[in-house]
């Protein structure tokens, strides 16, 4: 290798690395914040990947046929909610094993999006190019050096993605609904005592989470790129699950974890351009989120404490 270490550092740690991090994180933030809401209510939805796939697929197809990416975005959210209802019915009402139901949702998402893709667009593994959501250019940011390069000219979905953790912080810790949500995950019986039905709270939380996962998927196909291709979510749903664990099921923490994983991904892309492929194990960066998550779960990095009642179906006292 004839490139010096300092040169590598200089050409890798640029402002465009920051731009790429934000660009990558948007879909993961939507999905992981959504999953955080779900887990707070005491339900673990491992099907995020499948919901994101269906969201990405729906957004691209609807945009293709209507020409309007906003209708595409909305439809993706609705499809997410619909899958959320199915999952909630299985996990909460039928009380089937949440992990297996999540697996089913994952397989369903992979299969259905791939199947319908071929039905609608016979050839190749992707849709035609579609309209994308607008890119936001803020005039006021132009004069602020670093901020301008990182946050300007990003997708319009960046704004809600950056606001989500703050909004969720307020909802979870400052509103009565947030208290009920936390109670549903910690001690659903206490919730029942004050006359609130944990089942309804859990349903709402699962559907909200699935809605956000659908939006996170839509971002991939109608904003970050301009088409849907088979399996394009490529593990981001599981990264989102990891971010929830890494972020301790708290809005700020989950957001920071999503940013960290996105940064690693951006760094990996950036390093690839300067270091010849045979010297650079990019795979190390790609497995990092999973390894970190497993280390946390194993209790090596820090004690992660999720909601106490997670994955336990709620049983009414009197039958």
């Amino acid at each position, binding site marked *: 290798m004839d490139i010096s270490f300092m040169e590598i550092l200089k050409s890798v740690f640029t402002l465009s690395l920051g731009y790429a991090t934000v660009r990558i994180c948007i879909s993961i933030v939507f999905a992981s914040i959504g999953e955080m809401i779900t887990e707070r209510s005491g339900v673990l939805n491992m099907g995020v990947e499948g919901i994101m796939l269906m969201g990405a697929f729906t957004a691209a197809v609807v945009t293709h046929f209507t020409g309007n990416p906003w209708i595409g975005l909305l439809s993706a959210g609705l499809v997410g909610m619909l899958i959320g209802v199915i999952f909630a019915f*299985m996990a909460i009402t039928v009380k*089937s094993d949440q992990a297996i139901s999540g697996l089913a949702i994952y397989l369903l998402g992979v299969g*259905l999006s791939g*199947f319908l893709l071929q039905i609608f667009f016979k050839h190749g593994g992707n849709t035609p190019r579609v309209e994308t959501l607008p890119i936001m250019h803020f005039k006021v940011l132009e004069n602020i050096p670093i901020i301008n390069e990182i946050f300007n000219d990003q997708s319009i979905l960046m704004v809600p993605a950056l606001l989500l953790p703050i909004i969720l912080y307020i909802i979870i810790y400052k509103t009565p609904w947030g208290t009920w949500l936390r109670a549903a995950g910690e001690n659903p019986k206490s919730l029942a005592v004050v006359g609130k039905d944990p089942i309804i709270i859990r349903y709402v939380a699962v559907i909200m989470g699935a809605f956000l996962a659908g939006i996170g998927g839509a971002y991939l196909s109608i904003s970050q790129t301009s088409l849907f291709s088979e399996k394009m979510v490529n593990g981001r749903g599981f990264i989102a699950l990891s971010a929830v664990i890494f972020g301790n099921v708290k809005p700020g923490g989950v957001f920071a974890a999503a940013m960290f994983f996105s940064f690693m991904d951006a760094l990996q892309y950036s390093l690839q351009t300067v270091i010849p492929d045979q010297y650079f194990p990019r795979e190390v960066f790609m497995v990092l989120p999973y390894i970190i998550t*497993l280390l946390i*779960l194993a*209790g090596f990095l820090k004690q992660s404490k999720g909601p106490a009642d997670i994955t336990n179906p709620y049983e009414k006292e009197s039958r």
Partner: protein
Amino acid sequence: MEKLRKFIIKRGEILTTVLAVIFAFMVIAVLLLSTGRNPVEAFGYFIRGAFGDMFNFANTISRVVPLLIAAVAFIIGAKASVFNIGIEGQLLLGALTSAVVGWAFDLPKAIHLPLTLLTGALAGGLYALIPAWLKIYRKVNEILSTIMLNYPAFFFCHYIVLNVTPLEGVIPATPFVKESAKFINLVPGTRLHAGVIVAIFVVIVAYILLQKTTLGYEMRAVGLNQEAARFHGIPVEKRMMLAFFLSGCLAGLAGAVEMAGVHYRYLDQFSPGYGYDSITVAMVGLLNPFGAIFSAILFGALKTGILDMAVYTEIPRQLVTLINGIVVLLISMKGILQEKLNQLTKGKESVSQKEEVA
């Protein structure tokens, strides 16, 4: 009526599973109809593609082999309440390891082929010890950990193929293995190879282990009721660890057999999701090794039949994953279905019985 009642009570599990599969196919039929395709015609092509002639049939059976071994892998775990969703990753590692052993050594066939298969199995088994340890000593849900461990396995194999082993040509793969590490082909021109014998052997051994040995009895006891098993002096942790290890070994073996019988090298991304399919196969096979033979043939047929179907009726091959999803979804709801069925047939006595148990 009385006979029907008895039948439902006795065979309720089989009945609900068959219902789930039929329902999945009905959903598919409706999907096909709504997109203007004829499901009956599609089914005809599917049957012809899977069983139509000797060649198609042989190809179907060649698909059954990895599915069946991997399904038994899932069953061995599930019997001890260990849900190994990491079969896909263990299968990849098994295939890679066996491909390297098959290529790097030059030994007589009687030693080389078994060694190739054994090292592949061992690789899968050792990798499965990670989630086993996490589950038993750190209380980490194994479904979560095994799903996550599939990704490192995939990226590891990808890295080895691209950067460590020499590349021959443009396809990312390890070099071909020596002749002594290959299964003989049974029907020339098809993919059917002698690995089918290994699959049958695995089914029989798994059945004997689970049903006829003390070890198997103890593993099943752990799966049924951990506390009771512990009370009776069964070392619960050890049995779970063993179940996980054996499950991983069989997953690795499934990959090794597919490598030594079909591809003769580790082909990057060779697995069309055998690991995930095997879960469905095992569930539809009612977690019984012999039951898995039937469901593996069903899903193996789906995999080959779909190819003909895709050509003639433009029905995409992704249908298989979709069917998998629907079947897993329905089977995970089987509990409530069976409860309803029992209530219908048994009437009130089942309710009172339940209360007694509780």
